[in-house]
């Protein structure tokens, strides 16, 4: 990210946790990262990881008849880190990890993020820290 683009940039969005909420949240995060000049492949990978956390919130957290909220909070930290939180206020569903085709989501998140922490008190709160060096050259620094 450019020197100035790191300073205090953030995105915070709350939606009802319907299955169709994940896509516009991904798109908002993608455009936010593009404005931060995070490189394309890095942006794509971050979207893959955050998309898994969003999918979990809209799939697992609530009774589909009574969905609560899903919240996305992304912000820069220093010049090469993007922190992204995905929260819901539902109930974390403990499941047998051995179910085939299950458990892929968090595995993908862990493969992409530098660190992942999951807090399941009063909902599920996934915090992901990504390396997010900026794209290209070095002539974007602020003259001030």
């Amino acid at each position, binding site marked *: 990210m450019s020197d100035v683009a790191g300073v205090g940039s953030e995105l915070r969005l709350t939606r009802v946790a319907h*299955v169709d909420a*994940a*896509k516009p949240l991904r798109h908002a995060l993608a455009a936010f990262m593009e404005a931060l000049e995070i490189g394309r492949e890095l942006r794509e990978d971050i979207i*893959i990881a955050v*998309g898994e956390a969003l*999918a979990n919130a809209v799939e697992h957290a609530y009774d589909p008849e009574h969905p609560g909220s899903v919240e996305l909070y992304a912000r820069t930290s220093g010049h090469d880190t993007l922190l992204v939180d995905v929260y819901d206020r539902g109930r974390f569903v403990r499941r047998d990890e051995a179910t*085939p*085709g299950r458990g892929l989501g968090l595995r*993908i998140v862990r*493969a992409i993020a530098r660190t992942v922490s999951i807090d399941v008190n009063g909902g599920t709160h996934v915090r992901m820290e990504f390396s997010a060096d900026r794209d290209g050259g070095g002539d974007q620094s602020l003259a001030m």
Partner: protein
Amino acid sequence: MSEQSSYRVISLRGELDISRKAEIGAALQIAGPGPAVLVDLSDVQYADSTIIAEMLRFREDARRCGRRLAVLIGDPRFRRVLQYAGLESAFALFEDRGAALTYLSAAETT
């Protein structure tokens, strides 16, 4: 090896996420024995793990029916997401349609 051999194509497009799980589950159905299957994802920009799980289930269905399966991709993200999931060898992936069809028709002679 026959260049004329028939195969079935299932095309999916756009962003394959959780909101499309039912639609994609319905598209990825196999009734019994028959020709090889090409899943065409060449116009897919995003696929989440819900969809990968459907693809794994479909792979088992195809295997059970003795039908070879190839997956045509247009975007490197699909290969990457499989890698991240530890599934880099789960599917026969092709960027090139011709190569995918050669693979499928070769199957018939084996």
